[in-house]
């Protein structure tokens, strides 16, 4: 089904697509049909460049649910192990 489940959030950072970097300012996280991944449903991440320049509108990633959980856990692990004084926000 189209789950419609979508979280949207403002983000601060950059992303690279092809040869070009750009600042990204918003993201969508959703569990729904992938475009390319060989799965009926996937966790999909879109990072948008608000100025719509350089990234050809977005950088997209589609992950299986288990891969998405592993990614989320890995992000939490590296943040937890990084020196707190290096994490400004």
């Amino acid at each position, binding site marked *: *089904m*189209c*789950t*419609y*489940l*979508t*979280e*949207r959030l403002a983000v601060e950072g950059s992303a690279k697509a092809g040869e070009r970097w750009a600042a990204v300012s*918003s993201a*969508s996280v*959703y569990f*729904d*049909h992938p*475009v390319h991944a*060989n*799965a*009926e449903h996937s966790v999909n991440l*879109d990072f*948008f460049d608000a100025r719509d320049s350089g990234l*050809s*509108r*977005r950088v*997209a990633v589609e992950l299986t649910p288990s891969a998405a959980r592993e990614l989320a856990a890995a992000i939490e692990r590296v943040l937890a192990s990084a020196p707190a004084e290096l994490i400004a926000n």
Partner: protein
Amino acid sequence: MNPRTHNLSAQTVSYPSADGAQIEGFLAQPSDLGSFPGVVVIHHLPGYDQATKEMAMKFASQGYAALVPNLYSREAPGAAPDDAAAIARAQGGIPDDQLVSDVEGAARELRGLAGANGKVGVIGHCSGGRQAFLSACRLRLDAAIDCYGAFVVGTPPPESGLKAQPLLDLAPSLSCPLLGLFGADDKFPSPAHVAELEAALRAAGKDYEFHSLAGAGHGFFAVDRPSYRVEAANQGWAFVFDFLGRHLRGAAA
């Protein structure tokens, strides 16, 4: 009913939505028939994609003019279909009123084609199934096909942030016969959801025909996805063309 495969032509077009906006669309039509009905083909949430355009060409090969509105024409003009879908989703999807306007304009466009017999149906899959039902309740159409549309019964979760409204209360205003094609193993819509919709249509005295296809879940028509089920899809297409042949062929009402 549809005895042979027709020659066809297909092209990208621009047409006016009922609200005045100019909408991109993909139009496929038979090129060897003097008279043909029309079908508005509503793409699914993932967008105005190749698979939906191929469905339009299948309709044309069977003697129907088929128009696929790019429902994200306003939100992301010129974007690749998958990027447009992502952009529309990030904006909360498209409002139901906008969808109805785009389908109304598409139906008008189909009725205005040289050779149109004046009858127009609507078909949609997944989110498009819901939108096909919505369109048939809000517009005067001649046939509607809901292929496993979720949230015809019930409401999308509030955390989805999308602009879709509950539809079941619209059942009394359904303007045309409805064909519903569902996967027996689907969860959204589940057999219980389908039964609830059927009960509402029966109570409203509507003309409907539902088939739940064995061995199929959601998305069984989608040839480019792992949900594809060849047996159910073949049965489903036979139901589609039988239904449309009965309701769209012949003189316009």
